[in-house]
């Protein structure tokens, strides 16, 4: 059992790299083996149930009776533009952010993994951080959370910052993005290189607009980031600004220590880019592949997931609802080895550490999702054998009146459940 909680970095060096779990912080206690639950941060929809954002827990272990079923659903009250979330380094808490209201909801997922409990809210994020808006990414660091944001309170544009909070929810500091690369989106660390990459998207006044309206506004469309910043992670100092196409979103470092590169999808141009460490220690950004045909209409490359053996990269494109699996054995020349339509729209993809199970959700942003018949809302689970995806189960979030499912995280019974006897201490309570 204890093997299952070896640190990601420790296991990285202790065993050959194996396989969203594969896209987590190297400082996070990793879940290996069969996940029991998929936690889905879900946007509320008016008229669907209570209409509030909620954390939905789905049974994911085929050996259990709740497989493929909704195990629990905890409403946070109100709609906040539920988007991403992340565990604290010890995997005891799941932090979830609202891009619209900038509220952060902290769930205890350790005490009863099948029934997460909302234990804290951070309601003064813009004030505490000195004007940061839109908490987006939640990335575990030892003893604290690194939050990459999207916007600011002054003009709701794209200038934004990285923010740190302690695991106890205390504000630590704000680090504004550099002047030549003011936008933010993702932040990912390569621990062995002491390098962090950050990517860039757009501000509140763009991401809260309806997509067709936004895409028809040429001036607004200029307000997207096109930079990736290389940081000295320990010093939190920007070292290099790399120019890339518009809206480079998710960053995935390769896992093997000798693989000194990361992949990033340029969302609006539908290109896959690599960021490679050069022999002099600096980095270069290089286009490595087109994602799908270069149609007039952008496909919106939205999420990517790297396998733990650095062999496969799953790439979701929202507009055609497809996943394409690239063989990234040659990182400078990835090739598509498989593609499949997941739904009428698809956004997030998460794979297990062993690479055998892959989960997809459908929602991008409340005002960017399709409408009418196109607005499918689901979680779909598949098996992956290295060649193809095989459907396992799905949960229809519309039918269940849950909302728009977005970010997924995995949970496991017993991960922190105490089996201590009375004379032995159990879990430390904060």
């Amino acid at each position, binding site marked *: 059992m204890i093997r299952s909680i070896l*640190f990601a970095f*420790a296991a990285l060096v202790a065993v050959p790299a194996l396989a969203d779990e594969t896209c987590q912080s190297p400082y996070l206690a990793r879940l290996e083996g069969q996940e029991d639950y998929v936690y889905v941060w879900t946007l509320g929809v008016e008229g669907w149930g209570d209409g509030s954002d909620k954390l939905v827990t789905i049974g994911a272990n085929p050996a259990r009776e709740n497989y493929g079923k909704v195990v629990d659903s905890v409403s946070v009250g109100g709609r906040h533009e539920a988007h991403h979330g992340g565990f604290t380094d010890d995997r005891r808490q799941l932090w979830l952010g609202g891009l619209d209201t900038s509220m952060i909801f902290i769930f205890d997922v350790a005490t009863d993994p099948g029934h997460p409990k909302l234990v804290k809210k951070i309601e003064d994020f813009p004030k505490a951080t000195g004007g940061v808006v839109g908490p987006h990414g939640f990335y575990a660091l030892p003893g604290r959370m690194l939050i990459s944001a999207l916007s600011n309170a002054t003009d709701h544009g794209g200038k934004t910052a990285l923010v740190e909070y302690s695991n106890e929810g205390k504000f630590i500091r704000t680090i504004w993005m550099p002047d030549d690369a003011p936008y933010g989106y993702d932040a990912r660390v390569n621990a062995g290189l002491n390098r962090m990459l950050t990517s860039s998207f757009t501000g509140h006044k763009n991401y809260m607009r309806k997509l067709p309206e936004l895409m028809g506004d040429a001036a607004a469309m200029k307000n997207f980031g096109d930079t990736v910043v290389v940081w000295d992670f320990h010093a939190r100092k920007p070292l290099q600004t790399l120019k890339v196409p518009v809206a480079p979103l998710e960053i995935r470092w390769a896992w093997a220590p000798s693989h000194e590169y990361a992949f990033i999808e340029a969302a609006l141009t539908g290109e896959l880019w690599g960021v490679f460490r050069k022999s002099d220690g600096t980095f270069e950004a290089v286009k490595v592949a087109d994602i799908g045909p270069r149609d007039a209409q952008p496909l919106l490359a939205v999420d990517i997931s790297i396998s733990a053996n650095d062999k496969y990269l799953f790439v979701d494109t929202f507009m055609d609802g497809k996943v394409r699996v690239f063989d990234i054995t040659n990182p400078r020349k990835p090739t598509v080895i498989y593609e499949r339509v997941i739904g009428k729209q698809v956004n997030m993809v998460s794979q297990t550490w062993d690479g055998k199970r892959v989960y997809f959700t459908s929602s991008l942003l409340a005002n960017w999702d399709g409408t009418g018949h196109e607005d499918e809302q689901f979680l779909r689970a598949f098996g992956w054998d290295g060649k193809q995806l095989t459907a396992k189960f799905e949960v229809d979030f519309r039918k269940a009146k849950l909302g728009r499912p977005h970010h997924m995280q995995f949970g496991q019974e017993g991960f922190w459940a105490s089996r201590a006897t009375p004379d032995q201490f159990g879990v430390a309570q904060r």
Partner: protein
Amino acid sequence: MRRWPRSWLAGAALAGALPTALAADPGHEGADAASFRFDPPEVGSYELPAIDRVSDHVLLASDGQPEPLLDLRPGEAALVSFVYLSCSEECPLSTATLHQLDRTLARDGELARRVKLVTVSFDPTRDTPARMADLAKGLAPKGRWQFLTAESSAALAPVLADFGQDALWIPGEAERPGRLRHVLKVFLVDAQRDVRNVYSTGLLDERLVMNDLRTVLGAPR
């Protein structure tokens, strides 16, 4: 390339402070390969804002007497590591790094006087003061390095909670002794008892910790 101090592992095992199997645990061969392929940022070129503030706590020293965990004077700092002696997973990495730091600090007398290393056992039932004394003997510290345990697990629980150090006791099975599931963490604490950094496996680089100590402590006093 960072290397394990194998002499310490063997020495500690021989001293009876750690199971002999520790030195041969293949899992630690992997840790042996851990390398930090970068030069740490320069001392004083970055900030380490307080993450949290902890209290001082009275525990048991290796001579069985009550001992404050921190008891820091102005201008001092401590590195606090929670381990248990029968741990065959992450704890040896933590202790090995503190051992390296002890040796490095010893070469800088002024800094050595201002830094205190503290190893605290998670497992007071088995890690008695006498066993902690054995560990200290095996490691032969050159500087200020305390080896603490507690009267009981109940006495230790508030310390772990204060530091945000999780631990879960997994009872033993037929042929396997009980063990503790925990996330490896080493805490850098300043004289105000502010936690200025937390190191886990992917951050526990002796060079980085040394630069952090110098950054936190500033100019020689």
